[in-house]
Each structure stands twice: as structure tokens, then as C-alpha cells.
């Protein structure tokens, strides 16, 4: 089930919200949340609900075990128990996500052909595994106490608003909210606005600009002009931002409607003036997870330049690998690792001297090239596409097809560029804080308008999966 579906909007969500809000006490609300989250998950993955329940049970018991060792000052036992649980979580993730990739590569280099069965990836496994890891590690570090209520713990792991595409919510950030939270009418309304903004981003912008990217991808590489290649790359750049940030906004909005506060996952990343800044604004929950649980434990930037570079490259290779079991994702991660190292030690002083617009162009060109590595089915096709962007193997600089794509995507393209900056939203928000009498009417009309137009689109085209579901 996805948020941008008619069934979710008009059946699942209303029933859930009524049940959640009419029942008293946080403990009962947690139970409602757990039950509905499992139904939500089972809708697409009936078998993998068992995997999730076992995951919840193992990590719940592990948390209690770790806490008991720490209280009894049996630190060695606590350490082994933590390593065991972390390794188990990673093995399960690795098995479902990377098993086929590993065997495929072994088959490519070894003279034997190892038979294997590829497994369907349990949706959201990368997200919820990172959440369980944060829990186990934080309990071991003494940063948080173990959760003693299995319902609350189950609700945390399986919470449907952020279960399948994040943001990755760390247990320590949400622990208090699992015990006590309040939903006021203002907070509920604020959540509904976040949700509708996300829905609009996904249905009205991402899906429409995505169709331009898909049309470009139907043009075979030798028939692609430089203009066509850039229009396709631009369309994907916008699609992935509005798709993913739209989902995150919906998750944050749903969280608020239930009384939770999740961290912001995007902060206008396409306004960045360096790649380092871009990654401070893009998928913030993932970047901060890697910083907290990989980069800093490896030593961060405390061991000199060589060690910092090593640590950065490890983090970025893992970031790439987290996104998918394919070489292009690993290269995509390494690509960013290299640029960030170069910015840190070589470019930054020169970048700082450049006018803002040039720094912005520099960032966006590198980001767009990065997306080619991301959307291409293989490393070879990524290189071909990147070649096309710069005229290598392309069908000239411009052609009729390229102009056609440019013309058809121009209005939507301009709108998406504007919507990817804070300009539109800030202007609109200013209205809410003004003294104008009609402001609430305008606000209501805009949000109801987003809902109605989105629903009209959804009725016509119900299949619109989120790009980040496959991670």
C-alpha cells in the first residue's frame, strides 16, 4: 500500500485515524498503531510480516538483555551481545539485499556457475534495519534505556508513516514520544498540511516530470542528442527530489497527526552551493545515521588527513551500497566520497571565492551526473549516458526530439525548479502570519485544491510507486 493511492487516502487512513483518536491512553494508541502498521505492511508483503515480527522480537529481547548486562556491570557480555545482534541484523539485511549480487559477481569471476534463487526485497528493510541498529547500539552505549513494553517497541519499528521509505527515526529521538504524546487540533492540522504538500509533490510534480524522464529513456543511446540527454537528466533530478521529499513530508505529516515529531529529511538540497552542503540537506536522516554510527566510531576526523579520507570513503561506499546491490550504486557512493574529500582538502577555498551562482551551477552539474549513475541500469549504460551529456556518442548537440522534450517539459520544469527552492513556500507561509482576514480561506483553498487535483490524477493513474521503495 502506498500513501498516494485512493485506497489509502479514503479507506485505510480514515479508519485508522478514527480508531487511533477515539481510543484512550497512549498504550492503547500504540497498539492500534502497531496493528494498523502490520496490516499496512502485509498489504504488499504478507510473508515478510513474519520477518518483521521476528525482527521486532529479537531486537526487543536483545535490548532487555543488553540492559541487564550493563546493570550487572558485565561489560564484556554486553559487548558480545551487542555485536551478535548488530551482526544478525546486518546479515538479514545483507542476505535479502545483497545475496543475489554477491553470487552474480562470483559467477562472473569464477569458472563455475553457482545456482541461486533471488529473493524479493522486503520493502523498507533498509530503513527499519537501521532503526533497530540505532536502538541496540544506543542501549549498549547507555544513551537510552531499553524499551520494556513490546507493543511500544513494535510500534516504533513497524510505524507505517515512515516504515517503507523513511525518514530513519532513531529510537533515542522518539523514546519519550512513545511514552507520552499529545495531539492538538493545531498539530493535527499542521500534520495534514505537511501530508498534503507531500502528496502534491509526489502526484502533481514527481509523477508528471517522471513521465518526461521515462519518455527520454525510450530514446536509444545513439539517437540521443546532448539536449535530450540533459532534459532527461534534469527530469529525473526533479522527479527523485519531489518523489522522495514528498514521501518524507507525508511521513512527517502523518506523524504529526498521531502526535509524533520526526526529524526533517530534506532542506531544499538543490539550493546548495557545494556537494558537502548538498549532503547536509539531502536525506538528512540517513547522513546523520552514518555520521553517528559509522563515521564517528571509525574515528571521524580525529586521526589526521589520511584517516579522515579513509573514514569518509568507507562511509560513502556504504551509503552507495545501502541504496542498492549494484555496482553503479557503489560507484555513486564513491563518486560523492571523492568529491567531498576534494572539497574538504582542495576545492573549498577556491569554491568560497566563486560567485554564488557559479557554485550553485557547479553543485547541480555534479548532482545531475550523480543521478545518472543512480538511475542507470548498469555502470556501462551510465557511462554511455554521461558520454551523451557531453556529446560523446550523442546524436549531435540538439535535434527535433530534444526540442520536443524541452518544449513539453518547460512549464513543469520551471515550476519544479521554483518549488525546489524555499521562495514559493516562504511567500505562501508569510500569508499565514499576516493580518489579512482572508488568509485562512486562501490556505484552505490551496490545500483542498492540492487534494482534489491529486485525487483526480490518482483516479486516472493508480500505479505510481515511490522510487525509494526499492531501497
Amino acid at each position, binding site marked *: 500500500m502506498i500513501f498516494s493511492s485512493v485506497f489509502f487516502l479514503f479507506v485505510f487512513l480514515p479508519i485508522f485515524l478514527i480508531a487511533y483518536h477515539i481510543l484512550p491512553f497512549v498504550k492503547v494508541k500504540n497498539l492500534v498503531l502497531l496493528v494498523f502498521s502490520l496490516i499496512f505492511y502485509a498489504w504488499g508483503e504478507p*510473508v515478510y510480516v*513474519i*520477518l518483521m515480527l*521476528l*525482527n521486532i*522480537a*529479537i531486537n526487543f*529481547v*536483545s535490548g*532487555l*538483555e543488553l540492559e*541487564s548486562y550493563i546493570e550487572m556491570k558485565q561489560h564484556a557480555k554486553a559487548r558480545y*551481545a551487542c555485536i*551478535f*545482534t548488530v551482526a*544478525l541484523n546486518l546479515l*538479514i539485511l545483507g*542476505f535479502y539485499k545483497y545475496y*543475489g549480487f554477491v553470487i*552474480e559477481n562470483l*559467477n562472473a569471476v569464477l569458472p563455475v*556457475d553457482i*545456482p*541461486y*534463487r*533471488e*529473493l*524479493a*526485497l522486503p520493502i523498507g528493510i533498509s530503513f527499519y534495519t537501521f532503526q533497530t541498529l540505532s536502538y541496540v547500539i544506543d542501549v549498549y552505549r547507555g544513551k537510552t534505556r531499553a524499551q520494556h513494553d513490546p507493543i511500544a517497541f513494535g510500534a516504533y519499528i513497524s510505524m507505517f508513516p515512515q516504515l517503507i521509505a523513511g525518514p530513519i527515526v532513531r529510537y533515542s529521538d522518539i523514546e519519550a514520544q512513545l511514552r507520552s504524546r499529545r495531539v492538538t487540533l493545531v498539530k493535527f492540522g499542521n500534520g495534514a498540511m505537511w501530508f498534503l504538500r507531500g502528496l502534491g509533490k509526489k502526484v502533481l510534480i514527481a509523477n508528471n516530470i517522471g513521465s518526461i524522464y*521515462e519518455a527520454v*529513456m*525510450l530514446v*536509444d543511446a545513439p539517437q540521443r542528442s546532448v539536449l535530450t540527454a540533459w532534459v532527461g537528466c534534469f527530469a529525473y533530478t526533479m522527479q527523485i527530489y519531489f518523489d522522495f521529499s514528498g514521501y518524507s513530508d507525508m511521513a512527517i505529516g502523518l506523524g504529526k497527526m498521531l502526535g509524533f515529531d520526526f526529524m526533517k529529511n530534506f532542506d531544499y538540497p538543490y539550493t546548495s552551493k557545494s556537494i558537502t552542503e548538498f549532503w547536509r540537506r539531502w536525506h538528512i536522516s540517513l547522513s546523520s545515521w552514518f555520521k553517528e554510527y559509522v563515521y564517528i566510531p571509525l574515528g571521524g576526523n580525529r586521526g589526521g588527513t589520511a584517516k579522515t579520507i579513509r573514514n569518509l570513503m568507507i562511509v560513502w561506499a556504504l551509503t552507495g551500497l545501502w541504496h542498492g546491490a549494484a555496482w553503479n550504486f557503489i560507484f555513486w557512493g564513491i563518486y560523492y566520497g571523492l568529491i567531498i574529500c576534494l572539497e574538504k582538502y582542495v576545492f573549498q577555498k577556491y569554491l568560497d571565492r566563486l560567485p554564488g551562482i557559479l557554485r550553485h551551477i557547479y553543485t547541480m552539474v555534479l548532482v545531475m551526473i550523480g543521478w545518472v549513475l543512480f538511475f542507470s*541500469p548498469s555502470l556501462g*549504460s551510465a557511462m554511455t549516458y554521461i558520454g551523451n551529456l557531453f556529446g560523446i556518442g550523442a546524436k549531435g548537440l540538439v535535434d527535433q526530439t530534444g526540442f520536443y522534450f524541452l518544449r513539453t517539459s518547460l512549464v513543469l520544469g520551471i515550476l519544479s525548479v521554483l518549488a525546489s527552492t524555499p521562495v514559493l513556500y516562504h511567500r505562501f507561509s508569510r500569508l499565514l502570519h499576516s493580518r489579512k482576514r482572508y488568509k485562512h480561506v486562501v490556505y484552505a483553498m490551496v490545500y483542498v485544491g492540492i487534494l482534489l487535483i491529486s485525487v483526480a490524477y490518482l483516479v486516472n493513474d493508480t500505479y505510481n510507486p515511490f522510487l525509494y521503495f*526499492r531501497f
Partner: protein
Amino acid sequence: MRKFYPHLKILLTVLLIVFVISSLTGGAISSADMQTVAGQVVKGTKFEQMSPAENRIIKRFYGLNANDYESVVLYAPGDNMDVHELLLVKLKDLSQQKTVEDAVGKRLETQLNSFEGYGAEQVALLNKSVTIVKGNYIFFMVDEDAAKAQKAFLKSL
């Protein structure tokens, strides 16, 4: 209760391992390349002399983006009154199975609706269409030789 935590964890881990092993009973992945599979399937059929359709035809008929899959081969009908066609898809991962199956089902339904009432021969042929999902390969064929091609398909994987 505390002393039971490690035992409980081991018990749950064993259950998890059992679940993981049981999930390995899914469809087998074939490493056979599409060129070989398609070559075997079309051998001796009318498609042998034809060229596969372009990606945009795949998009038009099935709504599938060929680039999203490991490989897609379509032999499309020659004209508007023709229904003979062959689609072979090699998936990137098994999560794509349902999308392709749905697309094939939709294509078949569209064709049946188009010919129902006046194209008795076409409808009969469409009703004999063969769809096979075998691990990472999907086969769909509308042809008198579908049974023969089906055997060749399964053998080639």
C-alpha cells in the same frame, strides 16, 4: 527472567534462520542471457525471420520501460489485424514480477476487447495464449506454435 534473555534470543534467532531458509524455496534465477533464450524460443516459428520491436513499442503495448529490466524482447504483430506476438522479459529482481504479469494481463485483455465480436480467429488464438513466469524470466506468446516455443523457453533457462 533476566537469565532467560540469551536463551530466548537464541530461540528467536533459530526461528529467524528457519524463516530465511524457507524463503529460499522461491523461483530459481537463471543466468542464461536473453539472446540465447530468445534464439531458442523463436527457432522454427514465424518470429525467426522478424526483427524485435523498439522500446517505444514495448512501452505502447505493455506500458513497460525496457530500461527498467535486465532485458526485454518483443516481437509485435505485423499489422492491426494480426495478434501474433511474443514477449520475453528478464527481470532485474523478483519484485518486478507482478508489474510485468499485470502488464501482460492488461495487454491480453485489451487485445481480447479489440477483437471480440468480429475477429473470431484472433479471439481463439488470444484465448490460447501462453504466459509463463519462471524465476527471473517471463514469457508471453500468442501463436499457433506457442506450446513448442514454451518447451524451448523452459529448456533454455
